[in-house]
């Protein structure tokens, strides 16, 4: 559990509790709209800075509230209300497909406008309930999510590395599974999903890094790491006879485990574990080189691709060392 996770969970608990208390105390005449609006708005916390987050919540609530008010005003004239709701839905749907980042806020706006169809809602009070819900959510964000960017930035780094670890595991699984050639689609789909998740996490990291005013150091490092992992993955396609992997299955399995351990240690930022894992990966690379010298160079139809693979492994090791700030000489565990 990181600080960011604990804070987020506390924020959710406090927000839902406050909403329940306000609703049960019946301070607001339109409690139902208040509860629903707060429930939707509290999940709108993807933006980076407090100002942006508050702005997004306020803008969503203001648009939704005004549309809800208009819908309620038009309620006595059913055809006009119908056209109005259809238009709001159309605009929200179109804008949401144009920019997926705003799809959820637009869904909230659309949903709030739909509430006007619920019979017997007074116009002004419903709008004020939406504003009250937004005020509560913004207040909860201000009080309960201090140092949001700093915490989320650290969490983003961890998440990117965890995703990279899963990506590399999936890539090695392709090489190690005997049925890969028969079920290429199945395995490639898994790799594709992990790649997209990595890219999404890296994008989020870039946004967070910009917000905490770091000079894109981590993002560049992660980008290079991502490219090296994909470079490693080229082997699964370059080796035309999949049975070749059986010749070095033990070494590949060990490499997969060591890379996974190393990336996990980097995610957890454990210094001692990092050094041990770097040394372990280096040993595994040496073992793979030995197998190449004695087996693959003779038996594999395309020995060059294994040299390129070894080059990528060494690049991965070097880059991880650089990112972790561990000098090769300082390790003392060189094979």
């Amino acid at each position, binding site marked *: 559990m990181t600080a960011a996770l604990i804070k987020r969970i506390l924020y959710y608990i406090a927000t839902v509790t406050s909403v329940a208390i306000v609703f049960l105390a019946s301070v607001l005449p339109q409690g139902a709209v208040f509860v*629903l609006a707060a429930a939707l708005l509290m*999940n709108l916390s993807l933006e980076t800075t407090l100002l942006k987050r508050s702005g997004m919540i306020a803008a969503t609530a203001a648009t939704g509230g005004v549309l809800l008010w208009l819908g309620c005003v038009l309620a006595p004239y059913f055809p006009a209300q119908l056209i109005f709701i259809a238009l709001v*839905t*159309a605009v929200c749907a179109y804008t949401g*497909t144009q920019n*997926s980042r705003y799809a959820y806020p637009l869904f909230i706006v659309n949903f709030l406008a739909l509430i006007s169809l619920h019979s017997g809602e007074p116009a002004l009070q419903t709008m004020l309930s939406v504003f009250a819900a937004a005020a509560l959510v913004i207040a909860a964000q201000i009080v309960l999510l201090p140092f949001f960017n700093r915490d989320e930035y650290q969490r983003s780094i961890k998440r990117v590395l965890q995703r990279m670890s899963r990506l590399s595991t999936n890539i090695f699984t392709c090489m190690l599974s005997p049925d890969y050639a028969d079920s290429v*689609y199945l395995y490639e789909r898994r790799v594709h999903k992990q790649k997209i998740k990595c*890219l999404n996490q890296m994008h989020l990291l870039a946004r967070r890094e910009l917000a905490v005013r770091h000079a894109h150091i981590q993002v560049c490092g992660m980008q290079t790491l991502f490219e090296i992992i994909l470079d490693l993955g080229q082997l699964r396609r370059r080796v035309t006879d999949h049975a070749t992997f059986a010749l070095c299955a033990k070494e590949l399995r060990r490499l997969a485990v060591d890379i996974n351990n190393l990336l996990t240690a980097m995610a957890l930022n454990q210094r001692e574990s990092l050094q041990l894992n770097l040394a372990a990966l280096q040993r595994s690379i040496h073992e793979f080189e030995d197998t190449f010298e004695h087996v693959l*160079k003779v038996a594999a139809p395309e020995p060059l691709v294994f*040299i390129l693979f070894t080059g990528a492994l060494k690049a991965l090791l070097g880059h991880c060392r650089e990112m972790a700030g561990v000098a090769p000489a300082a390790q003392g565990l060189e094979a």
Partner: protein
Amino acid sequence: MMKPWQRYEWRHTLACSLAVIAASLCAAYFDFANMFWAVFAAVVVVQTSRGTPVHQGLSALFMVLIGVIAGYGLSQNLEMAEMISVSQLMLLMGSVMLMLRLPASYQKILEWVVPSIALLAAVVWPAADEMQLAQRLMMLMLGGVLGMSCNILVLSMQPYAEFRQGMLPILQALIDYSSAVTMHVLKEEKNTQAMDQAVNRLERVLRSHRNEYPEWVFEAGFNRNLRSSFRYVLIQMERITESFFSLDYHVRQTMEPEMLADFAPHLSLVCTRNAELLQVMRGFFAGERITLNQENFTSDITDVHNSLRNLLPGSLELLDMSPDYVNIAALARDVIDIRELLLQLLAGLPIDELAVTE
């Protein structure tokens, strides 16, 4: 080229609006008091991706129905304070699950949020008795069916055209990246700004920021007749993009200028020809007339091999003497791989119908 009304965003907009209108009119005819529930269900079930609208629509409708029934169950057995506590707890769980998956796609967000909202709505607007609950459920199902019908009739009209349209941004991004690499390797003063922009564009397309990438082909339950061919093309494209990412890594490595000077012209020529093949593919997917010249696409690869033979040591053992040797071999291999994959993909496309030979 697709006409504006054939584009996904317009058809999705049309499907959503029609679903709302149809659900409102039907609810007005059958049960005016429960109109909100019909329209709510209609709006929720049309918020699907392109691949499997029925499957996603049904699961969304099912979750909404469960939420409303659970809300009724709570309202019949508990006091208001307990009801609100339980429903807020459900909302809390949904939000925490969502938070653990961030950044989630829009569909995933709705998957976690909408059932909680349906439950909350059923709690704060409780049905008085079983009869009212039954009417509410009927309206939800009516709205859901109408929403899904609109989605099927309007949205999944032309999966082939959708797929073709979806391939254009990724191909354009790869063409731009090829041009940036060509410029980069030929310039003596290395400036990676153009490559950074091109690779960012490529990543943005892959992330499907504006639904640009036809990722919906990978969804479980996608049209059986189309999926094998679509997925073949997409997997080949995945392999090509992976090779591009690998190329991006190798091309950014610092190498001895003398070594690169001999190799760069050959490398840039292969990249240019690769971009030409990508252009041909882009033309095919855009439905444009394609001009095929009679050039063969192997002579430049032979030149790269010859250049490598002069640059690199003859024996494999000596290749890892210098990181530059390995890097240059990897660079060459990446561009050759891209060429092979492009030729394989082009060979599988029915390109002859659009082709004009020079």
